[in-house]
C-alpha cells in the first residue's frame, strides 16, 4: 500500500448539513466532520433566523410586544405568550380571573397536542416514513380549526392578555373540543399500531442517540428530552402555576434516554394533555375572562422577576427587568430549544449520520425559537 493510500483511508471530510436541508426543520446548519458515515464532530450553526426579539421587547410597550411572543416558537405559540403574560402579571401584580386561567390551560394544552402531533409526523419523515404525517396533520388540523374560532389565528396565536384572554370560549368550542378529545383517543391505538409497533421504526429508535440525565442537567435540556432520560422534571409540577395544581395528570417518564424514550414521552403527553383539557372543561367556572382595572399602558414597578412555563419543548422562561416605565428595561427570553440543541455536538459524537438525524429529530427543534 502506498503512503498516499494509507493516509487516505483515515481522512475525514467536512459536510454542510443545511442551512436548507429538508430534514433539519427550518434554517439550521450543521457543520459535520465525517469519517466515512461516522460523525467525528457536528457543530450546529444557528442564527439564520435571528430577529432580536429581546431588543424589540425593550423598545415597545409591554402590550405591543405581545404579538412577538407568538413568532418565536410558532408551533406552540400559546406557551410563549403564556410565559410572557405571566411574567408581566407577576411583576405588575395583576390577578387573573379563574375562568381565564381555565381557558388558558385548555388552549395551551390543545396547542401542546397540536405541537406533538406535528412533531410525530415530521419526525417520521426524518426517518423516511411519509404516511404518518398525513394522519397526524389531519388530527392537528381539527385543533387548529378549534383554536382559530376563539383566537382568530391558526399558528401565531396572540390570545392571552395581561389579566386574562381577549375572547371568551363559546358552547361550539366546548362541544367541538369534547368531540375532538373522543376522536383523538380513538386514534391513539391506530398511531401505536402504525408507528410504535413498526419494526423499522423501532430499529431506527431503540438504543439510538442516548442522552444521559447528567448531560441534560449540564446543558439545561428540559421537556420531553429530560423526561426521556428518566428525570421527572416538568415545570407544571416543579413550580406549579395557573390551575395545574388542581388538575390530575401524570408526567410521563422513560429512563432509556434513547430516541424511542423521547418518542414515547410525547405520545403519552398527548394523552395526558387530553385528560387535562377534559378536566378543565368539566370544571370550567363562569365569570369574566379579563381582570378589571388593568391599565391600558402598563407600568410595572421597578425590579425584576422570572417566570417559567412548561412549553411543548421544555422550560420556557421570561425574565423581565422593569425600570418603572411603560417599556421593559430588559427582556430575556429563555428558549428550551436553544439548550436542547446545545447538547447535540457532544451527544452525536461517534454516531452514524443517519442515527444522528434521528437524535436531532427527537430534540423537537423549532429553529426560530432558538434564534429568536
Amino acid at each position, binding site marked *: 500500500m502506498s503512503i498516499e493510500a494509507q493516509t487516505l483511508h483515515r481522512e475525514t471530510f467536512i459536510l454542510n448539513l443545511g442551512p436548507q436541508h429538508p430534514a433539519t426543520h427550518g434554517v439550521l446548519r450543521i457543520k459535520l466532520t465525517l469519517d466515512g458515515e461516522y460523525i467525528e464532530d457536528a457543530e450546529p450553526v*444557528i*442564527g439564520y433566523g435571528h430577529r432580536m426579539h429581546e431588543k424589540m421587547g*425593550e423598545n415597545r410597550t409591554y402590550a405591543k410586544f405581545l404579538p412577538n411572543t407568538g413568532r418565536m416558537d410558532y408551533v406552540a405559540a400559546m406557551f410563549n405568550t403564556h410565559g410572557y403574560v405571566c411574567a408581566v402579571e407577576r411583576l405588575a401584580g395583576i390577578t387573573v380571573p379563574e375562568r381565564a386561567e381555565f381557558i388558558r390551560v385548555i388552549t395551551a394544552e390543545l396547542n401542546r397536542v397540536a405541537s406533538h402531533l406535528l412533531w410525530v409526523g415530521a419526525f417520521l419523515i426524518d426517518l423516511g416514513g411519509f404516511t404518518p404525517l398525513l394522519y397526524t396533520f389531519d388530527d392537528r388540523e381539527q385543533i387548529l380549526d378549534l383554536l382559530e374560532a376563539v383566537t382568530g389565528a391558526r399558528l401565531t396565536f396572540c390570545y392571552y392578555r395581561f389579566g386574562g384572554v381577549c375572547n371568551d370560549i363559546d358552547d361550539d368550542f366546548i362541544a367541538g373540543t369534547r368531540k375532538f378529545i373522543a376522536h383523538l383517543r380513538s386514534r391513539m391505538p391506530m398511531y401505536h399500531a402504525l408507528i410504535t409497533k413498526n419494526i423499522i421504526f423501532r430499529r431506527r429508535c431503540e438504543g439510538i442517540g442516548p442522552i444521559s440525565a447528567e448531560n441534560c*442537567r449540564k*446543558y*439545561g435540556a428540559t421537556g420531553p428530552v429530560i423526561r426521556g432520560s428518566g428525570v421527572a422534571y416538568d415545570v407544571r409540577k*416543579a*413550580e406549579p402555576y395557573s390551575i395545574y395544581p388542581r388538575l390530575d395528570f401524570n408526567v410521563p417518564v422513560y429512563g432509556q434516554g434513547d430516541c424511542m424514550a423521547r418518542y414515547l414521552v410525547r405520545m403519552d403527553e398527548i394523552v395526558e394533555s387530553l385528560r387535562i383539557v377534559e378536566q378543565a372543561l368539566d370544571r370550567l367556572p363562569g365569570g369574566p375572562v379579563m381582570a378589571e382595572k388593568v391599565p391600558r399602558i402598563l407600568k410595572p414597578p421597578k425590579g425584576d422577576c422570572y417566570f417559567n412555563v412548561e412549553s411543548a419543548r421544555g422550560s420556557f422562561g421570561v425574565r423581565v427587568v422593569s425600570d418603572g416605565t411603560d417599556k421593559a428595561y430588559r427582556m430575556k427570553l429563555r428558549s428550551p430549544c436553544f439548550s436542547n440543541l446545545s447538547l447535540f455536538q457532544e451527544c452525536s459524537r461517534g454516531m452514524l449520520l443517519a442515527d444522528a438525524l434521528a437524535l436531532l429529530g427527537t430534540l423537537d427543534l423549532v429553529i426560530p425559537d432558538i434564534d429568536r
Partner: protein
Amino acid sequence: MPINMLKTKFAEIAVCVAATPDTPSAPLVTETAHAAKGYDLDVTVPADRVTGAARIMDEAAFMLEAITGVDWMAEQQFEIVYDYTAVALGARVVVRARVPRATPELPTISRIYPGANWHEREAHDFFGIVFTGHPELIPLLLPEDADFHPLRKDFGA
C-alpha cells in the same frame, strides 16, 4: 432545607465581596419569595467568583437554565445574570455579578457547565461581555463579521 445550606455556602463567597472597595449596600445573599419573584435565592458575587458559584451549584445538582446580561448604563456597569434551577426541588437560584462597562470581563463557567458555552457566546454577541477562558468566543446568533452589540443601551434601533 437545601436552600439554607446553599445560603451558608454562598455566604462564604459573599464575605469576599465585602472586602472589595465598591460593596453593594443590599444584602448579598437574599432569600426571595418564589411567588413574587420566580426564584428562591438571589446571590450577588464578585465577577471573579462566578466559577466558584457555579461549582456550588454544580455540587448541589442544579441545572443551568440561562446566562444573560443587563446593561446598567447609568452606573456604567453590565450585570451578568445566571439562572440555575434544581430539577428535584423546583427551586431557583439567581447568581448575579457586575463588571465595569469599559472592561467587561469575567471568567467562563463553560468548563463546569458545558451548556454555558452557547449562553456566554450569546451574551458576548448581545453585550460584548468577554468571558475569559471561553473555548471559542465567536458570534453565535449574529453574523460572523458582526462588530456591534445590539442590547447595549447606546445601540440605536
